């Protein structure tokens, strides 16, 4: 396949960026999107130019490191698919494809297609965990979890934290991400003791990071590679209301 990639290049946080075209005329339809970027980068390095910076790690859709806006859609055109699992057979020969980074106030740019998503980490650090004491592990059978509950919690836990929901949202809101984390732990007995404090702290951190508010656009659910549903947002709201009612304790 012959393709032209129109890629956002930006030397650093303060530098101006621009779209730069890269033509590749030997793309195999079986390549993944990131492999095409690899090929372009190999050629750039061979010419002594700086390669395009982008994040990736597992390249099998499970880690959440990759994230590109492809033709205006976070993670590209395929439903429930991370950009590392997006294959070129879904594009037309001769097509020009635009490639941009996640854009959100809370995700300041690093370089080219790489942005700083540590705001999501700080939200997790504010409460997205279960505190445990060191020492012997508790007896697992003393904490029974009904199957439906475990399944529901797992549906939320499937979030890989890539930030596509933020990138797709016109408000750059992180409620789908935060909702998934809150719901995951709120459903399980292990999360119960810190449930109110967690919801209050995570929402406070989310606001402090500069993410926007939710106006129920649903763009987040549409692009989520893990099909995290908007009911997680509803759960975030009810958990947050419950936390306020209890004074965040």
């Amino acid at each position: 396949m012959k393709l032209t990639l129109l890629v956002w290049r930006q030397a650093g946080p303060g530098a101006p960026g621009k779209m730069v075209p890269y033509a590749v005329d030997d793309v195999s339809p079986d390549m993944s999107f990131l492999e095409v970027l690899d090929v372009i980068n190999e050629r750039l390095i061979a010419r002594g130019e700086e390669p395009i910076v982008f994040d990736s790690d597992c390249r099998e859709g499970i880690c959440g490191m990759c994230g590109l806006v492809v033709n205006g859609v976070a993670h590209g055109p395929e439903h429930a698919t991370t950009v590392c699992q997006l294959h070129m057979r879904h594009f037309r020969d001769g097509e020009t494809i635009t490639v941009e980074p996640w854009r959100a106030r809370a995700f300041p740019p690093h370089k080219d297609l790489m942005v700083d998503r540590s705001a999501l980490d700080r939200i997790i650090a504010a409460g997205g965990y279960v505190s445990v004491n060191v020492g012997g592990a508790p007896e697992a059978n003393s904490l029974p979890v009904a199957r439906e509950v475990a399944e529901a919690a797992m549906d939320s836990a499937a979030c890989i934290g890539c930030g596509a929901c933020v990138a797709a949202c016109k408000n750059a809101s992180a409620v789908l991400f935060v909702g998934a984390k809150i719901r995951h732990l709120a459903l399980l007995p292990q999360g119960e003791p810190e449930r109110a404090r967690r919801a209050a702290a995570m929402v406070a951190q989310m606001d402090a990071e500069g993410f926007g508010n939710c106006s129920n656009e649903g763009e987040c659910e549409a692009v989520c590679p893990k099909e995290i549903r908007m009911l997680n947002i509803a759960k975030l709201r009810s958990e947050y209301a419950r936390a306020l009612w209890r004074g965040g304790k």
Partner: protein
Amino acid sequence: MYERITGEDPYRVPMRIYPAIHYTMGGLWVDYDLMSTIPGLFVLGEANFSDHGANRLGASALMQGLADGYFIAPTTLAGYLAGTPLPKVDVEAGEFNEAEQAVTARIERLLAVNGRRTARSFHRELGRLLWDKVGMARNEAGLREALGRVPALREEFWQNVSVPGRATDINQALEYAGRVADYLEFAELLARDALERRESCGGHFREEYQTPENEARRDDERFAHVAAWEYTGDGREPIRHVEPLTFEYVQPSQRSYK
């Protein structure tokens, strides 16, 4: 998942499957508390050598991560922290300076080579060599060949790698080149270890050591042990240490897929 990657519906087109290596099995040596040879450096899960020996696949690595993290580290780490004086250290410490200088020197060296080949092309060549000669089925001649070719490739890497950009901002090409430099060292150890182990064991099949039915043939007389290699410095032969494996309740047996 298969359909997503291949574009073929496995309900209609037969799946194309071939065996591949997805683990190198070993890991860093640790003691019973999971502490490495560096005091205070604990190594958990699949990064350490323990538990799984010559056959560690995906789920068992996950299990080891959970077991180490849930049952062992909470006890041994706490014990270490409680029983060890930990004076404040800062970046003025001699060891810090030494380490920083070593890292900086290596980075500068990588950037200064200014050669004609990308790190990825070295990575690919090394991968191909390991795949062919230190793969799932290996033999003495192939391992010796690999042991001859890896140092030559490493030599070429340091003469001819091309790493663009600077060290002062995000430079993924530099990061990648640093990793490939590490692989070039580790690959040699991998081949050396495989050569020394004159038996077929777990996921490692030495073609010379097989049963008449082509199953892996172990040699428990001589090889029922863990081999731990001690690094002795750049360009120096590592030392092979042996930790015998003793089985009290379950005896090792021949694995059969029939």
